[in-house]
């Protein structure tokens, strides 16, 4: 009797699941988890990543998918928080998803990279730039973006050779990403003989910076490097202008999105930002850029093309290696190179890109940007 009940039950559950998935989905798909902030204060970056990844899945499916199977993007929200990222990793394991594009924030990526390595899940982050992620000897972890020890020196060299500030202040948000890149910048400028007059952290979520701005004004600071994300920098810019503190600011790609202009308004004019090169300006990507624009999506954001590239690397590897086993795929990815919208990519043994370039952009109050170098 009991067995009978269980059969009935499982049949019913099966029917419900089939019903929910719409019967049309009877064919098997290759699931790729896309993990990053969908809500929270840096959800804009999650958008960029999801946009790129979804576009890649769509276009690959339009060309018939991979080895006869369709790809399916599973979007998961880590809110850029380490504890939430761990939950997301749990979901990925439970759903038996074998490939992850993400996570986005370095702080959220570090704890889960270890999990994916241990569980044999292939992870490619198109956005997390903290160097330590790939310094753990992981075999399953890759990234399709540069690192802070490339980005920091790019910013540092620009400050030392082009700006030559009399008094430099370096501020960071005391988080993995912000502090890491601020330290890289400090190392580079100190090697060039510039000693920052101020190196200190603010608290994430802080909204009043008047005391810090007063201190920088008194010390005669004329250039500020900020390591962190846009919500805090936007307010710093705005309150600096309010207090009549007119130093120039520079930040990493974590500040480069249009919300900084929404928060800081005119004070965001002239902000310097290091970003990945604008791949949407590359003529080779013209058709792809058009596909984005046809859907009213923005291909020029820093993480859209790297996310596209991450999905494509996974798909190409599955085709090339003729297997879906993530461990074998990781091996294949290490050994081969891939033609993607961010150029021909090949990976070092630690999973970092062999080449990646950051470019200095000047930000404008209307949220547009122009390259300066």
């Amino acid at each position: 009797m009991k067995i009978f009940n269980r059969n009935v039950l499982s049949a019913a559950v099966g029917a419900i699941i089939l019903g929910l998935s719409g019967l049309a989905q009877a064919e098997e798909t290759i699931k790729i988890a896309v993990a990053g902030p969908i809500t929270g204060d840096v959800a804009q970056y999650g958008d960029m990543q999801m946009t790129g990844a979804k576009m890649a899945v769509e276009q690959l499916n339009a060309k018939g998918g991979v080895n006869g199977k369709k790809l399916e993007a599973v979007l998961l929200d880590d809110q850029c928080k380490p504890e939430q990222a761990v939950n997301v990793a749990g979901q990925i394991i439970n759903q038996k998803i074998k490939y992850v594009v993400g996570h986005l924030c370095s702080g959220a990526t570090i704890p889960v990279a270890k999990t994916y390595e241990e569980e044999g899940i292939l992870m490619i982050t198109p956005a997390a730039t903290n160097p330590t992620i790939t310094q753990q000897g992981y075999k399953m972890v890759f990234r399709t973006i540069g690192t802070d020890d490339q980005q920091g020196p790019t910013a540092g060299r620009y400050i030392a050779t082009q700006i030559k500030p009399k008094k430099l202040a370096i501020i960071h948000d005391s988080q993995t990403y912000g502090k890491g890149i601020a330290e890289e910048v400090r190392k580079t400028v100190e090697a060039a003989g510039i000693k920052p007059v101020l190196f200190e952290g603010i608290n994430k979520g802080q909204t009043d910076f008047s005391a810090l701005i007063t201190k920088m004004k008194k010390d005669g600071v004329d250039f500020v490097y900020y390591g962190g994300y846009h919500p805090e920098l936007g307010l710093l810019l705005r309150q600096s202008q309010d207090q009549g503190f007119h130093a120039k600011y520079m930040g990493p790609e974590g500040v480069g999105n249009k919300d900084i202009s929404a928060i800081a308004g005119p004070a965001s004019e002239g902000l310097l930002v290091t970003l990945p090169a604008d791949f949407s300006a590359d003529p080779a990507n013209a058709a792809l850029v058009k596909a984005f624009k046809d859907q009213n999506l923005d291909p020029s954001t820093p993480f859209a093309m790297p996310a596209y590239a991450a999905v494509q690397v996974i798909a190409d590897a599955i085709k090339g290696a003729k297997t879906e086993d993530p461990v074998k795929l990781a091996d294949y990815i290490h050994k081969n190179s891939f033609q993607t919208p961010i150029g021909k990519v090949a990976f070092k043994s630690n999973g970092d890109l062999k080449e990646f370039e950051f470019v200095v952009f000047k930000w404008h109050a209307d949220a547009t940007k122009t390259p300066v170098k």
Partner: protein
Amino acid sequence: MPGFSPLEFVQQIINGLTLGSIYALIAIGYTMVYGIIGMINFAHGEIYMIGAYVGLLVITALGLFGMDSITAILLVTLAIGILVTSAYGWTVERLAYRPLRGSPRLVPLISAIGVSIFLQNYVQIGQGARDVSMQPLLSGGWQFGPANGFQVYLSYMQVLIAVVTVAFMAGLSLFIARSRMGRACRACSEDRGMANLLGIDTNRVIALTFVLGAALAAVAGILVSLYIGKINPTIGFIAGLKAFTAAVLGGIGSIPGAMLGGIVLGLAESFASAYLKTEYKDVVAFVLLILVLLVRPTGLLGRPDVEKV
């Protein structure tokens, strides 16, 4: 590191007073509720957050309707903000506190935390989880000091915050000291049971306390959306924590204590940022709280004899 500059010191005092005024406005809500029912209203930070949202929405809407007089915008926004958040304050009391009156003290505490979580998520669903920002309504200010040295900058906005804060605090003090309802509040604070026996509708007094606290939180929220210009549904947590600290620092249950506590906390954060490092400002604020409580366990202006049941 260049040495001490007296003008910078003045500027840091201005910064600290501005921050402290906001803390003080929110702290009053905590202290009043505690003074009368001996409990902490954990949903108070969210009421402040709702005040900030109402402020931002109303100011944006008035801008769309073409209203350009800053005084008029400010008065209308304050009026609408106070009305809306008062309604929220009253509702919190009706839903989370009144039905549980007479139950153990932990029960309404938990229901208030529930309301706080609910309100945060409710605003997140209604307004989105992302930051909302607004361009400054009032910019500019006065500068003092030598032309080639450090200039003290006092913005119109900082003056506005100080003026509005002083006005509302004076109004509240007068209300508590002089009006009939204010006298009832003081009576309830002293002995709620006795006040009830003497014919005071204590339920009404308690509801009024929540409403007054919410109104002042709305004022703080509106000032913050004007001054900072960027809000999100989670701002209530940190602001609430800081204001609660200010209330305890000043002596919870005492209204002048909450004002003093807010100002002291604002100044402490400002000086910590200025003369130590910005990352230590919260550490300094909480160390100060511990030190004060070690020396005066009831806070700066708290009454030592009160033992609430």
